[in-house]
Structure formats: structure tokens, C-alpha cells
């Protein structure tokens, strides 16, 4: 081992910081503490044993209690190793899911390009070519969106998101998003209704984050609503908070899937059947945004009938 490697091994605080867990869960730190306790307890037992040599029971008792403490610390160390192993496993799963999700649009891009650039491309009309260009652009966008979502999640998990709060009108933000989603809603044959109480107060929040939150909920509501459905949005104020509600007449979330719905990458069984595309990150992001803004989020849903998601955000 090179000297600088030994030094880096000794930099316990640096190593623990890299793991992203607290010192009391960090194996290196706990090993140091256990070592110190080991030395201290041996010295104490020796000096106490010297003084109270007449009472061997007292020495036994002290040794026993020290053993118990060491046992507990060892247990915590094992647990934190387990946590690290779990984090590692999640990382592998993450990579496997993400690479698969990126591969689908990538194949679409690659094969559409193959088609356009191969000699056989000459056999297709200009009109068809335009269709293929559209495919290219749609799939590039799909990849871009997925990467954006992944970066957001990664930043959130590392606690790197700094909220840039300002006074914003949630009502205006919602109206803007409904406008942006109108073409998608029309194409899906879904109507969007929006009702807000009069004179809604502005809120002190990060507009980018709140937009992300409403965007994800609205996107889901339209995406999982069958043809001819309706999405209803309501906004009201309750005490020191604004209450947002979005109700759809969509596929709903099966009971057995409801407890996992905010988990990263989780997609309900019927959502998978309805729409094979989707990253399973939208609601995870929504929940993280609400949590970091000091609000609450939840839902009620019945399979086949629809879902209602709501969140609150503090006004100040």
C-alpha cells in the first residue's frame, strides 16, 4: 500500500462523507469508536481490577457491561454495512432500468436513421420522409426528458437542489401548464377543467420546482385517462396553505400497488399494460418537491374509476 493510500484510508471523515450517510451509520467511523472503547475498557478494567482485586464480581460485571456495549456497536456496524450493500444493489438496478429505458428511443432513432440513409430510402416519398424526421425528433425529445428526470432525481437524492423561492401565483402557473398540455389532451380526447377560488394568494416557492410538480400530476392524469375522459383541477386556500387537487376518470391504481406508488421507478401493473412508456419517476419527483417545500401530498384511487391526487403548499 502506498503512503498516500494509507493516508486516504485514515481520512475517515472524508470516506464517510462519500457514502452520504451519517457518522453513526458509517462503518469506518464506528470502527474507530469501537477501537477507542476497546482500549479504554481494557485499561479501565485493568486499573479497576488492580484496585478492587478483592471483589472479582465487580470486575466481571464491568467486563460484562463493556462487552454488551461493544456488542451493540458491532451490531450497528453490521447494519450499516447492510445499508451500503443495499445502496449498491439499488445503484445496479437503477443502471439496468435506465439503460433499458434509454435503449427503446435509441433503437427508434437508430433504425429510423438506418431507413432514411440506406439506399432504400430513395424509394420513399418526401411526405414519408417528413414522418420519419418527426419520429427522430420525438425520440430525441423522449431521451432528453428521461435524462432530465434522472438528473433531477439524482440532484434531489444528493440534496443538491437549492430552492430559489420567490412570490408566485400558483393559479397562473397552472393555467400556463394547462395551455401547454392542451394539444396532448386534445390528441388523447381528454377535457381539462380548472376551478380556482377567487383572489388566491401568491405563495413563496420555487417556480421551477412547483411547475415540475404540477406538470407531473397533470401529465399522469391525461396519460392514464381513457378516451373521452375528464381531468378536473381545483385550487383553494386552507388556513396558511394552498390546496391543489387533480381528479381524473382514468384507469386508477390497483389497491395492491397503492403503497408503492411514490417509490422511484415503480409503475402500477395496469399502467404498464396501458402505456409501456414511462419512467416511474414522475410521482417520486412530485413527492420530493412537496416534501422539500414543506407541504403534503397524497391520493385516493379506485381501479377502473380514476384517481384524485392532492397536495398542499405553504403560502409563506
Amino acid at each position: 500500500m502506498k503512503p498516500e493510500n494509507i493516508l486516504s484510508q485514515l481520512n475517515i471523515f472524508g470516506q464517510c462523507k462519500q457514502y452520504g450517510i451519517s457518522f453513526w451509520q458509517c462503518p469506518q467511523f464506528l470502527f474507530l469508536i469501537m477501537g477507542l472503547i476497546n482500549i479504554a475498557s481494557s485499561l479501565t478494567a485493568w486499573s479497576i481490577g488492580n484496585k478492587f482485586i478483592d471483589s472479582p464480581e465487580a470486575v466481571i460485571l464491568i467486563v460484562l457491561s463493556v462487552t454488551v456495549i461493544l456488542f451493540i456497536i458491532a451490531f450497528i456496524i453490521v447494519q450499516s454495512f447492510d445499508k451500503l450493500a443495499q445502496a449498491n444493489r439499488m445503484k445496479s438496478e437503477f443502471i439496468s432500468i435506465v439503460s433499458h429505458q434509454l435503449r427503446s428511443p435509441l433503437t427508434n432513432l437508430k433504425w429510423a436513421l438506418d431507413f432514411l440513409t440506406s439506399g432504400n430510402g430513395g424509394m420513399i416519398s418526401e411526405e414519408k420522409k417528413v414522418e420519419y424526421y418527426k419520429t427522430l425528433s420525438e425520440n430525441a425529445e423522449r431521451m432528453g426528458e428521461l435524462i432530465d428526470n434522472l438528473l433531477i432525481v439524482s440532484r434531489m437524492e444528493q440534496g443538491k437542489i437549492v430552492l430559489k423561492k420567490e412570490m408566485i401565483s400558483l393559479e397562473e402557473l397552472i393555467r400556463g401548464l394547462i395551455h401547454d398540455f392542451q394539444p396532448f389532451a386534445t390528441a388523447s380526447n381528454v377535457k381539462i377543467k380548472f376551478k380556482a377560488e377567487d383572489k388566491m394568494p401568491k405563495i413563496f416557492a420555487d417556480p421551477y420546482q412547483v411547475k415540475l410538480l404540477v406538470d407531473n400530476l397533470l401529465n399522469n392524469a391525461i396519460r392514464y385517462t381513457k378516451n373521452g375522459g375528464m381531468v378536473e383541477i381545483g385550487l383553494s386556500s386552507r388556513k396558511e396553505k394552498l390546496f391543489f387537487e387533480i381528479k381524473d376518470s382514468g384507469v386508477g391504481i390497483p389497491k395492491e400497488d397503492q403503497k408503492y406508488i411514490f417509490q422511484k421507478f415503480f409503475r402500477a401493473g395496469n399502467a404498464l399494460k396501458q402505456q409501456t412508456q414511462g419512467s416511474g419517476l414522475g410521482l417520486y419527483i412530485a413527492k420530493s418537491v412537496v416534501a422539500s417545500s414543506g407541504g403534503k401530498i397524497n391520493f385516493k384511487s379506485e381501479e377502473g374509476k380514476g384517481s384524485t391526487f392532492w397536495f398542499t403548499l405553504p403560502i409563506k
Partner: protein
Amino acid sequence: MSKTILLIEDEQALQKTIGERLSQEGYEVIPALDGEIGLKLAGTKKPDLILLDLILPKLQGLEVLKKLKENNETKEIPVAVLTNLEQIETVNKALELGATTYLVKANYSLEEVIGKVKQFFNQ
């Protein structure tokens, strides 16, 4: 008579690309955008080859494959799996269920896939 190929694939973009390219080669292509429709069309149209994706709406690809092989009417139709899943368990499962071949989309260009189809019919 031209050979018919049933293309069970939920990505519209791929339906278009593979479908049109196969048509250019003189094959008759029957598109199916989900597993249920694919299974039904396999029974009614009796294609000469089925290209099957695995992540499908309504009925997953492996289920489609299993049902095709259980049915006396469709069990002789060769099925080539064409997917982006490449976990070894999935590959083994598909081959065990009777898939003729297993192609991972990301590993091939469009022309290579078309080449594989042509090769299959020329054997």
C-alpha cells in the same frame, strides 16, 4: 406467394420502420400494437414468421409466446423475439418456451435485422 410476417411491437416508430422495410423486400407485414391483438392475429392470419417484442401492453411478450406454443393451431409458427431486454434469465425463458431466435434490438442495425429475416426464409 409472398411470405407473411406478424410484427408484434408497441413502439409505433418501430412498427413503421421495420414494417415498411420488410414490405420493400416483398413481405406482407401484419402489424399488432399489443400482445392481445398479436395473439389473435396469429391465430386468424397464420403468418409464416412472428417478430415478437417482450414489453407489450395488455399481454406481455413471454405470455404471448407461451400461449402461441400451447395452441396446436399456432405452435408451429416460428417466433423470433426482438426486444431490448437482455437479462440472461429472460433469454433462457424465451428459448425454453420455444422461441426460434432471440435478437437484442440495440445490438443490430435495421439492415442486419432485415438480413436475419431474409436468411430465415432462405434456409
